[in-house]
């Protein structure tokens, strides 16, 4: 088959950074093409150029041999090129059907054709195997369901090229599987899919071909993915070998540090009980909506508890706000960094010192020198890659933002319990293992760490014990020696019989 989508010598520079230099590769018709690389490797820039959001400095994009010139996202859209970003672009207050028709509502004489509005969408969704009510408001859908709707939107307009940027980062494995079969169907129809992901399993599961970018340059192009190995790709991405990205090692565990008894909240009606020992890393696994993040938020006082006691080192913590929790030594690195973690428009320094500065600000008057030292200390310690501590946090990559948020808590004295929700979502391989190392260090110092993750390999790779949640209850607790993919998944699935439907190659890794 001939090359359908071609990138020719694409270069793009921003002030101070050459984001892409002379990148050329091509994709066959009806192929799913993987695009991998560490954060900052130039994937996003390439996608942005493809989507018409930004123009390349030099080079051209061809589709079916025709040179594409886009002045805006709209031009690209009309040329059948659709990019689905990590931040979904749906109108929350409209229904699924309305979102899918947005911009070209079916109407007669200006009056909405409601039957067509709902009917066509219902048909399409069924055809694609997406179980979402077309009349439901998008606001009521889970992130996973919204993602499906976003893809359905691209299919509705008969896109020729669909680029997916980290589509599964917030999907459960079951939702991912629906997405994959959807992608398989699109491939059969001849659509070109550009698939950006950090997850090698998915790349191998889905892609026909693969391009690896590193530092804005083409690191490797594999027209046939069956000719490559995982280790090879990782080496191409990071430019060095990473033997074992988990790097877990045993450490002595102390007495009980955190005890949670009968914790319930509005969204978590069933009582949750568990304990974590000093130096222990406890993992919480479950499908999206199993209640893991809700549990963490209740524990942290971000949401109001209905009932339950939380005891840290034998002292009951009556935390009804994050501020109280922090004072009791319980801290949270939230799941959605952009929404709940970073403070946009403020510097790294300010993002780090926001909580701990109360220790060295008498009468609320700042101590800029101390604040600067503190920032420098943790920038060095956590190896945050930034030209300066004055840099706006929004300009950092996901991994570095996560490190700043970790720095925010490490600069607090006496953190006893660290809750970390999806520690490496959207973070590249190199930074991932750095973050794991930080967690091991903290555990070794006696901190009790609770890791919430939707990535089974990650949670099996780094924790000492796993609590599996299913529909708001703890379904199982499994010690490290007994870790077993099938057993963990079976506990996570609402109906045990479903476990056998799960394609094993998707969960197998390491």
């Amino acid at each position, binding site marked *: 088959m001939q090359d359908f989508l071609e990138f020719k010598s694409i270069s793009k520079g921003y002030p101070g950074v050459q984001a892409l230099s002379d990148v050329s590769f091509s994709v066959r018709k009806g192929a799913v093409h993987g695009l991998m690389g560490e954060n900052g490797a130039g994937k996003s820039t390439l996608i942005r150029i493809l989507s018409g959001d930004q123009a390349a400095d030099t080079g051209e994009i061809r589709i079916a041999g025709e040179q594409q010139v886009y002045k805006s996202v709209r031009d690209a859209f009309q040329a059948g090129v659709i990019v689905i970003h990590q931040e979904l672009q749906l109108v929350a207050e409209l229904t699924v059907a309305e979102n899918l028709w947005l911009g070209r509502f079916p109407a007669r004489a200006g009056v909405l054709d409601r039957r067509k509005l709902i009917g066509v969408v219902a048909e399409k969704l069924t055809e694609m195997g997406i179980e979402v009510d077309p009349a439901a408001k998008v606001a009521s859908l889970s992130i996973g369901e919204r993602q499906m709707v976003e893809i359905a939107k691209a299919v509705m307009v008969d896109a020729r090229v669909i680029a997916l940027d980290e589509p599964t980062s917030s999907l459960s494995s079951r939702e991912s599987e629906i997405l994959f079969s959807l992608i398989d169907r699109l491939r059969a129809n001849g659509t070109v899919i550009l698939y950006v992901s950090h997850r090698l399993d998915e790349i191998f599961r889905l892609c026909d071909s693969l391009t690896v970018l590193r530092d804005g340059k083409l690191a490797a192009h594999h027209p046939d993915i069956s000719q490559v190995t995982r280790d090879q790709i990782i080496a191409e991405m990071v430019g060095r070998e990473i033997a074992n990205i988990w790097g877990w090692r045993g450490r002595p565990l102390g007495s009980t540090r955190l005890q949670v008894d009968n914790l319930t909240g509005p969204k978590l009606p069933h009582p949750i009980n568990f304990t974590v020992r000093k130096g222990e890393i406890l993992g919480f696994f479950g499908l999206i909506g199993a209640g893991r993040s809700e549990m963490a938020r209740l524990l942290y006082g971000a949401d109001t508890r209905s009932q339950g006691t939380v005891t840290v080192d034998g002292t009951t913590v009556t935390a009804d706000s994050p501020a109280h929790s922090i004072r009791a030594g319980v801290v949270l690195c939230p799941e959605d960094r952009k929404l709940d973690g970073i403070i946009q428009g*403020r510097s790294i320094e300010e993002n780090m010192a926001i909580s701990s500065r109360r220790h060295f600000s008498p009468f609320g008057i700042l101590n800029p020198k101390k604040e600067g030292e503190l920032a420098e200390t943790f920038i060095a310690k956590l190896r945050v890659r930034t030209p300066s501590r004055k840099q*706006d946090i929004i300009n950092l990559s996901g991994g570095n933002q996560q490190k700043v948020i970790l720095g925010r808590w490490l600069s607090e004295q006496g953190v006893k319990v660290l809750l970390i929700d999806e520690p490496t979502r959207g973070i590249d391989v190199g930074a991932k293992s750095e973050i794991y190392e930080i967690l091991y260090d903290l555990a070794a110092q006696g901190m009790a760490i609770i890791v919430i993750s939707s990535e089974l390999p990650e949670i099996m790779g780094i924790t000492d014990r796993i609590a599996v949640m299913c529909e708001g209850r703890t379904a199982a607790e499994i010690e490290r020696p007994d870790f077993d993919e099938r057993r963990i998944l079976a506990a996570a699935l609402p109906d045990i019989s479903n476990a056998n439907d799960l394609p094993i190659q998707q969960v197998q890794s390491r």
Partner: protein
Amino acid sequence: MTSLKKLLLGEQGLVVIFALAFAIVSLTVPNFLTERNMLGLLQSVVTIGIVACTMMFCLASRDFDLSVGSTVAFSGMIAVMASNATGSIVLGLLAALVCGSFVGLVNGVVIARFRINALITTLATMQIVRGLALISSDGRAVGINDPGFYQLALSKFLGVPTPIWVMGVLFVTFGFLLNRTVFGKNTLAIGGNPEASRLAGVNVVRMRIWIFMLQGLVCGIAGVLLASRITSGQPNAATGLELSVISACVLGGVSLAGGRAAMAGVIVGVLIMGIAENVMNLLNIQAFYQYVVRGLILLLAVLLDNLRSVAAGRRG
């Protein structure tokens, strides 16, 4: 072209515009650059300048306060009526400050605790408070009995009228509060991302209530000085003040989306508003046209804010 753009949209852009405007006006408008006119100019921006101090905090934390004009008029009324009734100026002043703070407290509690939109809440209190000012005086101006009250506005220190000193002190105080205290940093953090700030341990509800209360308190101060200057409590005083104050803040680089503010910018913004008005008066431009010019300045300010965030938002 690009360097000019950079200069105008950058950190110091406003100062550059201000310096240029000042130079041009000084050279072209007769009687502008005289000591008398300069002091008059500063006198004329006292109300806007004082209220802008706290409006800056309000906007920086992503809030909004439309009730400031009414609160200034109301607390001015209270100051005059209470001092007339008790015969004590000090009691009158205290009553005015307490009333102003109380209005702010109500705003803050409704907005932060009950999570009602700030625009709607302060639109409501703006009407309520103006109504209270009219009711308490039966719609008429109330004259000041004790001539000592006039001294607030008339007295001078080192040749500069007291209200200007008060404005200066507030500029310094709130500049310090914004840049050098936890309160200021938390204000900016809330404006940057309220939920992340809460999860990072900032008591967002309490912060917002404090900001509105300070706003009310400062309106009380402005109300007292205004009443003293116009020698009476006027229920219709300071109408449209909220717009001038917000214009001055936005002109001064305070982002309406929150998270960005600078005291120096706000001072320059206030002065630009004052100069525009002063020049129009000196040139005998009809009052009716002044509305148009004020509106244009507001539009320009918002456009500038937009250009600036676009310039800052496109990250390299």
